[in-house]
């Protein structure tokens, strides 16, 4: 197996998960269960390609894509922050709607997938970092990714700063940990939750752009393939901490990369390897749960 290829793909596959995770962390810390990440990611992937195709301009496509995802974020927030609806049902609604809208519009357009190869030059979007790309082995892994992949890794640090060094970050954590404390000193709890969800929406949009537009210049149905849910798993495993959740995101990225690279040489059984990431989730979630519950001596469900 080509190890350089494997690790390059791990970073490449990890990037959209990292973006989703970093955005989702804020909602998690603010105590909003945002399972709409998956739908927002798919929407991001779809609208970025669609509007690039319609406007023939990548930047405009990206901009509209982010705007549309913000609207999705607001829809989700209205349902479960303002109206205090059940976030699982609201999230499920967003996810199902996103899938349905993509499939429906593809049907209306009469296309099996959206292809913007003529507008977007995938190879041209890959950024070669000078000096670093000269390093043997490592250069080939780190260099040569599209913009959003680099953005995702820089974002780990940025999000850490926002979460732990700014007023907003403190408020997000306070709202999640003790809502009463926040209310009693006059913090607008709902506003903090809105912003937390919207950060998730924007990050999911970027992840979607990375997934479809940047890496393939192509949108196919259901191309999010559960990455949003994988991100939720990573958020849970890392308790919403930017650094730790990103490490889990990279592990899941590696699992996907393994699936891709192993199936190349597997022939007839190649489909089997596509299950690796999903097995990995179940395995890691189980292990993390066991570790978290290791010392639990309280019977029943609640643990205060």
């Amino acid at each position, binding site marked *: 197996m080509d190890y350089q290829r494997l690790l390059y793909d791990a970073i490449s596959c990890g990037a959209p998960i990292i973006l989703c995770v970093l955005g989702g962390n804020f909602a998690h810390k603010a105590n909003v269960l945002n399972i709409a990440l998956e739908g927002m990611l798919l929407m991001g992937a779809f609208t970025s390609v669609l509007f690039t195709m319609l406007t023939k301009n990548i930047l405009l496509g990206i901009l509209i894509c982010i705007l549309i995802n913000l609207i999705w974020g607001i829809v989700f927030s209205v349902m479960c922050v303002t109206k205090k609806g059940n976030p699982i049902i609201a999230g499920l609604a967003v996810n199902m709607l996103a899938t349905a809208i993509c499939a429906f519009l593809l049907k209306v357009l009469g296309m099996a997938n959206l292809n913007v190869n003529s507008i977007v030059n995938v190879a041209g979007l890959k950024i070669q970092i000078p000096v670093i790309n000269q390093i043997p082995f490592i250069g080939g892994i780190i260099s040569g990714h599209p913009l959003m992949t680099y953005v995702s890794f820089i974002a780990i640090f940025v999000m850490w*700063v926002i979460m732990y060094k700014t*007023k907003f970050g403190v408020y997000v954590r306070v709202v999640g*940990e*003790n809502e009463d404390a*926040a209310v*009693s000193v*006059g913090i607008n709890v709902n506003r903090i939750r809105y912003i937390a969800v919207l950060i998730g929406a924007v990050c999911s949009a970027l992840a979607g752009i990375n997934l479809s537009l940047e890496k393939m210049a192509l949108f196919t149905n259901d191309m999010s393939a559960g990455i949003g849910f994988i991100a939720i798993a990573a958020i849970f495993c890392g308790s919403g901490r930017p650094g730790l959740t990103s490490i889990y995101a990279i592990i899941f990225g590696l699992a996907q990369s393994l699936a891709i690279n192993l199936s190349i040489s597997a022939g007839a059984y190649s489909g089997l390897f596509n299950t690796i990431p999903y097995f990995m989730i179940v395995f890691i979630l189980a292990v993390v749960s066991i570790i978290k519950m290791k*010392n*639990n*001596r309280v019977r029943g469900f609640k643990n205060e």
Partner: protein
Amino acid sequence: MNIIETVNITKKYGDFVANDAINLAVSEGEIKAIVGENGAGKTTLMNMLYGLIAPTSGKLLVGGKEVKFSSPLDAINSGLGMVHQHFKLVPSLTVCENILLGIEVLKNKTPFIDAKKQYEKVQAVVDKFKFDLNVRDRVEDISIGQKQRVEIMKMLYRNVNILILDEPTAVLTPQEVDELTISLKELKAQGKTIIIITHKLGEVMQLSDSVTIIKRGKVVGEVKTKDTNERKLAQMMVGRDVVLSVKKEEIDNSGNPVVYKLENISTKNIFGKEVLSDINLEVKEGEVLGIAGVEGNGQSELLKVVTGLMTTTKGNITLNGKEITNWWPANIRDAGVGMIHEDRYAQGLCQNMTIKENMIAGYHYCGDVCSRGFLRSQVISKKRDRLIKDYDIRVADAEGEVSQLSGGNAQKIIIAREFDSKPKVLIAAQPTRGVDVGSIEFIHNKILDLRKQGVGVLLISSELSEIMSLSDRIAVMYKGKIIGVVNQKDTSTTELGLLMAGITDKGGKQE
């Protein structure tokens, strides 16, 4: 000059009138006590003063001017601060961050927090009021008394002139209460006005300048503290003469056999920290063993372990010599242990089920209420009616749900259910928490009846007066250990208070 005045302030929830045309006047620089039973409407009144809820009608005047608060922030800006009964603190943040929550100090025109400057500013205020606090500690690591000081500090930092304290002494040791008294008197000397809400009349007498008594949402009395006494206040609160403490019969139970025994009980919490270490206790027949201690020193875990809600890491529990360690609650009940849990709505009752169903909960497979797996409705109804009569439970609708009942009557359902099962041992945790004065008297007498019948009682309570009036022997818990066991007759609240704070006459302060 009245710094706060309410004029006919009223709050209605549907048909229920929580506060009925209350006129309250607090003069500047005094310590005002507001007393009343649970559910009398004290907290509703304070929440209106603090902007947490809006009054249905009536006016609120601060410093002579009419104000309308739409949030606590408005109240704080008008110089009114509140320290809640349940602290509104964030455990994972430091003392300093908690005090500055909402008014963080930022680096020049950036969104970033200036941690160094924050520490300096808070330290300055802590020094000014002579509070004993380390501003860099995380709130999750400090004691309850310190947490309360953080809450008070939070308000003082915001320059409030009027401080409202809701049940401030509920969770403190007697010594911490004394410290709080000193702090409050110091604040008064510095010109602050203080309002305390409480139902502990001893503290009212000790602390306040004037008292307002509230009953069923109405003001029923307003007196200067120096012109009254505890008995008169209690009368006004309840509306009849009450026995402030029940009279315990002297029974010589020192020679009775041991019925319930804990040996070297230890357990760990979810973080792997030992929360109970080597607990050794013995309860004799016809004896009440009180467990005293400041809340959070392992009493909850001890309760969970003895009632089968938590497993041990080592040690044995025996009932009449029979091992019952780590049995499930149903089996423990079956073996003859009655349980009154500390939170009646979490473990004691199911609020959305009927009184009938709750009367047999936990015993639904016992005796004649169940036959071949089917519940016998008529038998249960009869049992319910009998218990309602015997235990004087005031229900509007006997077929209704438990949620319709007041705290005192809901607690009586648990008492009736557990006592009726003829236990050999009773485990009673906070049996009178949030219960009106009349019901407290009733429940205490029932517990003493059991004692007379030869039942062993393990009483866990954070109310020292309850422990003192019911127990034969008292064990004090501190940091998950039994720090001392004393005879009720030979001890005093001062001695217990020292033990509760971890100070033994031998080794000094334990760590």
